[in-house]
């Protein structure tokens, strides 16, 4: 009954093909096709979610794609509650971003191309969500990476943009390396690519524990790359070089969540391999804290949001590692809306002021009321203020963390919540309030057109209310819809709620005090703790570190291999062999001419010597010959007579 779901990714693909081959020249038509396709997909996704709600039994449809002995790949779709939620989130955010882009990308010479890429991305992302096996998910995983590359480097004239695209692609591909190996390990052990068949194998213990753990950890590497987790998080902040709608769609709401989705999808494996799960949780925890701390001091509005994304993704990964399937996916779901809203709002601000630096903004509230209000709503939501959606999902996460024996996860979780509140409101206060710092830019600033603000408002609505499906008091809320094995009915933990709210509020207050009232001077703090500030400001020096310990050695190695080994040794050996052969032939030539030929020539010259000795007899004097003749005659006669 749900087999029509394959149409959902197909529509954007068709839009992509149409735009590339036919309507490229007509910008307006191109954008309309693209938007139409994704909106249609959204309608289908709503139908899917409705029917899954009605009948939550997972359904699967597939066909054989490639069939060889011992290697059968099927392509198909798996629809369960997780897929349905993801479809809904992706379609929603994607269609809003599509619409928003019409305004944001207005006047860009490559307007049509932008929409074709967006469509291609939507196709890939929806395909990824629908995939029912590892090959398929990997295929779309890579396609998503490609579109991300293309969109980050969309303004490829800017060196930073094309650099960022390259960095993103290569960094995530490094993670994919682990992904491939993980797939190899797991599928070889289980003998299938299909998710559910593999989960069945895992649950029935067909895969040895060691292999399972190893495979799970390798698999997670893919998620680390895609979801920008420590230590492969470095690409995401740079990816902000792309157009802001792209950042909102791909690098905040959907694609980066693919890693989280992967872990959620393969939850069975991690539950069966607790060591791997612990690795997952630890990575998530480290990432959440690290990224949040970097976010505290960044000045680029989009970079702050990027680190916030990394941090929130770390949150989700952490809770998934702790077994909080429902909590993780729930946060993924709510986060998508408010993070997309934040980015789109930031985009609106950037669109108005033509700058990314928050210290060149300020006092924008009166000029761009809708943007400011929606931005603040999103900030409240991400900070986890009651009763916005962020509050409920964060609460779920902290609840799960509190069940874990080691309190470190809970502590970090609360700490990160506080930091999140602080840096988000630092952003709000600096950007929208206070005095305008750059008068020229301030005057130039204006509210964005309707096509941009309407998506903002819709997202703001969702940021507030989307989380309400997961209110712990609900009997049939999110937890009874998206769950692993058994419905997880979140129990309200009032102490945690209060604590986290307090922490968030104090974070907001701190930001208010520092950046609005200026009762605490950030400059003094900076001066007081120069070293931590510097470390944070330079993002823990990850880029520099990678440059030194990975990129430079590899470049050196490749140069070395080419210049020294390939040209210097292998090729020289080959040429040496050639020259040696030439030398040998010289030697042989000498041998030939002196020894072999010498013998031959020796015989010849012996003959010649003899001849030239004997030829002296040939005087040419006929009389000498006659003399000999008669001499012979005498001899013959004498002989005869005797």
């Amino acid at each position, binding site marked *: 009954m749900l087999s029509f779901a394959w149409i959902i990714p197909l529509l954007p693909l068709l839009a992509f093909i149409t735009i590339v081959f036919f309507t490229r020249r007509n910008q307006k038509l191109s954008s309309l096709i693209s938007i139409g396709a994704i909106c249609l997909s959204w309608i289908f996704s709503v139908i899917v979610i409705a029917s899954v709600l009605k009948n939550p039994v997972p359904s699967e449809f597939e066909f054989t794609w490639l069939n060889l002995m011992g290697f059968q790949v099927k392509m198909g779709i798996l629809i369960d509650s997780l897929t349905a939620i993801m479809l809904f989130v992706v379609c929603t955010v994607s269609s809003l971003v599509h619409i928003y882009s019409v305004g944001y990308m207005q006047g860009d010479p490559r307007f049509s191309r932008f929409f074709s890429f967006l469509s291609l991305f939507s196709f890939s992302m929806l395909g990824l969500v629908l995939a029912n096996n590892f090959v398929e998910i990997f295929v779309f995983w890579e396609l998503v990476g490609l579109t991300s590359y293309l969109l980050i480097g969309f303004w490829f004239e800017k060196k930073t943009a094309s650099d960022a695209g390259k960095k993103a692609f290569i960094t995530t591909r490094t993670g994919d390396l682990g992904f491939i190996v993980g797939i190899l390990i797991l599928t070889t052990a289980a003998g299938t690519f299909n998710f559910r068949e593999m989960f069945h194998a895992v649950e029935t213990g067909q895969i040895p524990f060691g292999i399972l753990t190893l495979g799970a950890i390798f698999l997670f590497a893919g998620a680390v790359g895609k979801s920008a987790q420590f230590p492969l998080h470095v690409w995401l902040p740079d990816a902000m070089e792309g157009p802001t709608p792209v950042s909102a769609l791909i690098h905040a709401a959907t694609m980066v969540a693919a890693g989280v989705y992967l872990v959620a999808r393969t939850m069975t494996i991690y539950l069966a391999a607790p060591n791997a799960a612990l690795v997952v949780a630890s990575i998530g925890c480290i990432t959440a804290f690290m990224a949040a701390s970097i976010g505290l001091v960044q000045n680029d509005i989009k970079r702050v949001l990027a680190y916030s994304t990394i941090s929130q993704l770390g949150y989700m990964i952490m809770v998934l590692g702790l077994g909080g399937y429902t909590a993780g996916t729930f946060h993924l779901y709510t986060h998508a809306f408010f993070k997309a809203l934040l980015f789109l709002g930031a985009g609106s601000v950037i669109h108005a002021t033509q700058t990314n630096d928050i210290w060149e903004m300020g006092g924008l509230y009166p000029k761009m009321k809708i943007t400011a209000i929606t931005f603040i709503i999103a900030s409240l939501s991400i900070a986890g203020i009651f009763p916005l959606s962020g509050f409920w999902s964060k609460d779920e996460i902290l609840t799960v963390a509190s069940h874990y024996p080691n309190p470190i996860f809970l502590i970090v979780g609360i700490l990160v919540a506080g930091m999140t509140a602080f840096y988000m409101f630092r952003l709000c206060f600096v950007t929208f309030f206070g005095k305008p710092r750059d008068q020229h830019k301030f005057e130039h600033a204006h509210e964005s057109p309707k096509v941009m603000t309407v998506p903002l408002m819709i997202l703001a609505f969702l940021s507030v209310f989307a989380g309400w499906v997961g209110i712990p008091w609900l009997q049939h809320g999110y937890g009874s819809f998206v769950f692993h094995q058994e419905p997880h009915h979140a129990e309200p933990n009032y102490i945690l709620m209060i604590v986290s709210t307090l922490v968030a509020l104090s974070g907001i207050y701190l930001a208010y005090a520092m950046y609005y009232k200026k009762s605490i001077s950030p400059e003094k703090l900076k001066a007081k703790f120069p070293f931590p500030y510097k470390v944070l400001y330079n993002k823990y020096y990850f880029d520099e570190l990678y440059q030194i310990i990975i990129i430079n050695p590899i470049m050196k190695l490749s140069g070395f291999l080419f210049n020294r080994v390939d040209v210097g040794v292998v090729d020289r050996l080959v040429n040496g062999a050639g020259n040696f052969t030439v030398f040998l032939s010289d030697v042989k030539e000498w041998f030939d001419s002196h020894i072999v030929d010498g013998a031959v020539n020796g015989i010849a010259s012996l003959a010649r010597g003899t001849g030239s000795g004997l030829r*002296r007899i040939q005087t040419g*004097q006929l*009389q000498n010959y006659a003399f000999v003749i008669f001499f012979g005659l005498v001899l013959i006669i004498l002989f005869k007579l005797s």
Partner: protein
Amino acid sequence: MIGLNHFLTLSTILFCIGIFGVLTRRNAIGILMSIELMFNAVNINFVAFSRFVTPTALVGQIFAIFIITIAAAEATVGLAIVLLIYRNFKGINVDNINIMKW
């Protein structure tokens, strides 16, 4: 008492003189002369055998005539060659005519 052997001995001596001339003379005409001597020695033999062995048949004499004729022809050609040699080698000393030398 002069018999066949006398004539044969005479012809032998003459023939040997001719050989000696052929072997030692350095002048092409001299060599030709020596050859004529040898012809004469042969002719003496023929005529002598004709006289003492077949006195009535005259075969030896006929052959002597033929030999004389051939000798004349030989002398003609030989002397023509000598002239040619003289013209080409500016001399008829056979020492100089050694193009057959190695």
